[in-house]
């Protein structure tokens, strides 16, 4: 009996293994002809002639991106793209705090996806993604001429364009506040750091946590520091240039220490609440709508997101003002944004280019914008923006003076974003001082500059 049972078991296992081999083999066979059928034939679905669509084929493009970079409306467009061309987009979404690690590990292992997401930035494309070796040159694509030149500048390395950026140009990080809480406590929009502190104190005394700060994601709390680039420029003109040329250190720049010290003060006074270190970014809407927090650092689209995420809440209950550290009253702008690159090692470069061209078609971009609650405008002219009264008022009040944020204006900064995040968390738990954080930034900048053989660092 035992013998029969074990014989059956072995037979089962062997047939299972053989079966698996068989399907594998079949897959390879069925894939290879479609891989080699590179002959494109025109298809009615696409409008552009330069990007003539191949006949429907069984191709899957893998697309690695960080959480929050891929919007639902893009996935809908990808479905439409698959209907038209048969090219399937396989989205691989990685938690945001680990994205750069995963991408670098995959590239180092030679397992790069067909398309990968990355933050653009004129200093970062080389050191961060080594685009000359890892990405495909897209300079001659049709959409390059239509995209906002400020954004193209950030996607360019050694005068070649490497990425497609479709992002909201109005998505600066600003303070979003709950008008009702402010009105109940008789508070006005603060116009200086001192007024901001006073408002926080009053809010905290009323039992509401002043600021929702999701530190656990590892990146959000860093924003408070470099986003103030416009203010640093105003306080200390020329600082950015000196930092780029290594004529000044972060450690010695008083304005930088000032903003970090003020951020730390907010922490130590408990204005971020007890749970800041375990708060998560994805819970922002829920927590803001619940009225447990009075303010958060977010983009101008947050009220609309709250309204669509939490039933019974209204977008009109929220207002905006700029980050108040260092008495800032100006608008920070970041023309570097999550972008899409094509891997140079991809077997399907043409299909990936075709996908980019498809996304950049005006009617598809309008669809993309109309179906994305976080966005109010796009960085392509001709796409109709959707500002409401509050947003219009904000841009009218603060939009006069704008400046570029530090992660884009300063070299060797953006690649160490999550490391700065760790340093700033360490500062929040009193293991580091603001000065230590700045010293660590200098140390990592030096390390990167030296390995990049930068002439300004010797």
């Amino acid at each position, binding site marked *: 009996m035992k013998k029969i049972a074990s014989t059956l078991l072995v037979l089962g296992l062997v047939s299972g293994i053989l079966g698996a081999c068989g399907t594998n083999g079949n897959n390879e066979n069925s894939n290879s002809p479609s891989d080699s059928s590179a002959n494109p034939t025109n298809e009615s679905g696409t409008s552009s002639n330069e990007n003539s669509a191949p006949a429907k084929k069984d191709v899957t493009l893998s697309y690695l991106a960080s959480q929050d970079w891929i919007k639902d409306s893009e996935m809908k467009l990808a479905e439409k793209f698959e209907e038209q061309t048969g090219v399937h987009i396989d989205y691989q979404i990685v938690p945001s*705090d*680990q994205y*750069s*690690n995963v991408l*670098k*590990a995959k590239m*180092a292992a030679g397992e790069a996806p067909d398309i990968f997401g990355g933050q653009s930035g004129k200093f970062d494309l080389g*050191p961060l993604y*080594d685009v000359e070796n890892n990405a495909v040159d897209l300079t001659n694509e049709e959409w390059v001429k239509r995209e906002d030149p400020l954004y193209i500048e950030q996607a360019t390395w050694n005068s070649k364009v490497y990425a497609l950026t479709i992002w909201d140009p109005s998505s600066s990080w600003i303070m979003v506040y709950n008008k009702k809480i402010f009105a109940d406590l008789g508070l006005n929009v603060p116009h200086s750091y001192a007024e901001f502190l006073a408002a926080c104190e009053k809010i905290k005394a009323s039992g509401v946590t002043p600021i929702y700060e999701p*530190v*656990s994601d*590892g990146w959000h709390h860093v924003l408070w520091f470099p986003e103030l680039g416009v203010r640093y420029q105003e306080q200390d003109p020329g600082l950015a240039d000196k930092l780029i040329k290594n004529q000044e250190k972060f450690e010695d720049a008083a304005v930088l220490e000032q903003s970090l010290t003020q951020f730390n003060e907010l922490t130590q006074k408990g204005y971020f609440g*007890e*749970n800041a*270190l*375990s708060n998560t970014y994805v819970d922002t809407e829920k927590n803001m709508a619940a009225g447990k927090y009075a303010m958060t650092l977010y983009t101008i689209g947050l009220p609309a997101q709250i309204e669509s995420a939490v039933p019974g809440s209204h977008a009109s209950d929220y207002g905006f003002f700029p980050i108040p550290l260092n008495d800032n009253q100006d608008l920070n702008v970041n023309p570097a944004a999550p972008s899409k690159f094509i891997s140079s090692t991809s077997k399907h470069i043409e299909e990936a280019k075709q996908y980019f061209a498809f996304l950049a078609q005006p009617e598809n971009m309008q669809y993309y914008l109309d179906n994305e609650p976080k966005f109010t405008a796009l960085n392509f002219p001709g796409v109709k923006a959707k500002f409401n009264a509050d947003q219009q008022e904000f841009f009218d009040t603060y939009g006069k003076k704008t400046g570029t944020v530090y992660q884009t204006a300063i070299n060797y900064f953006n*690649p*160490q974003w999550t*490391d700065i995040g*760790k*340093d700033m*968390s*360490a*500062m*929040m*738990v009193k*293991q*580091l001082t603001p000065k230590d954080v700045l010293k660590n930034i200098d140390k*990592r900048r030096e*390390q*990167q500059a030296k*390995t*990049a*053989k930068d002439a300004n660092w010797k």
Partner: protein
Amino acid sequence: MTKRMYPFYFIAIALVFYLVFAVIPSLMGIFLSFTDWNSYSRVTHFIGFDNFATIFSSDENYLHGIKNTIVFTISTIILKTVIGLFLAELVNKKIKFKNLHRVLIFMPAIIPMLVVGIIFKSIFNPEYGLINEALRTIGLGQWTQQWLTDVQWAFKSIIAVDVWKGTGYIMVILLAGLQSISHSYYEAAEIDGATAMMKFRFITLPLLLPALTVTTVLNLLYGLKIFDTVYVLTNGGPGYTTDVVYTQVFSQFSLGSYGVGTALITVLFVIMTILGYVAIRLMSREEYNG
């Protein structure tokens, strides 16, 4: 000298695989730890002991990671062995649903660490997590903690999760050891009037020593290469509080400093080799004595 049964070339294929996939990569790793291998340049240069000087310099945080790794290893060895032995004794007794208990205790060992991490992140959540909610419900609100984000608690929480997950496995090994001890020793001791404590001290422990050695070596090697538990629960945070060697290696690799990363692994390799050698010597001495 026994006569060779098979000619040497029978192992040739296996040996080639071993050389190509185990020996050569290891030696390459050790070599690369003496170079400035990084993600920014395509050529690497030999730089001697510079990477090791970086690791052991007081400006850097690496010694903190090494210290955490050692603290983790020692505390998990002790906790897992003590709790595992206690549980093994319990489920070795005549209790109801003995097998069910054994399965339940062993269960965490087969759950992937990533899943455990996600579950415990929610259990440890200070606002609505199971532990703090339970404490508040029974009126112990003052005992609630920021389990994973408080500097005092984060590393202890990580150790607790790892002990929860690993104890069942150790228990099974010790249980097998316990069951191999002949019952007649205990009967004889009972006739001589030995107490339960004396039986444990003079019969169970000495006869369980081989099993204990195995579990200690397993725990030792597991503890020194700890990564996943820390990575999924805190990723070294808050700040750098819970960094261990492999989370530091990981972040060095993501910064593109492959050289320093491999040098850290080499340091750990040396520590592991020494401890492993000592452990194997201890084990083989047991065999001779037995």
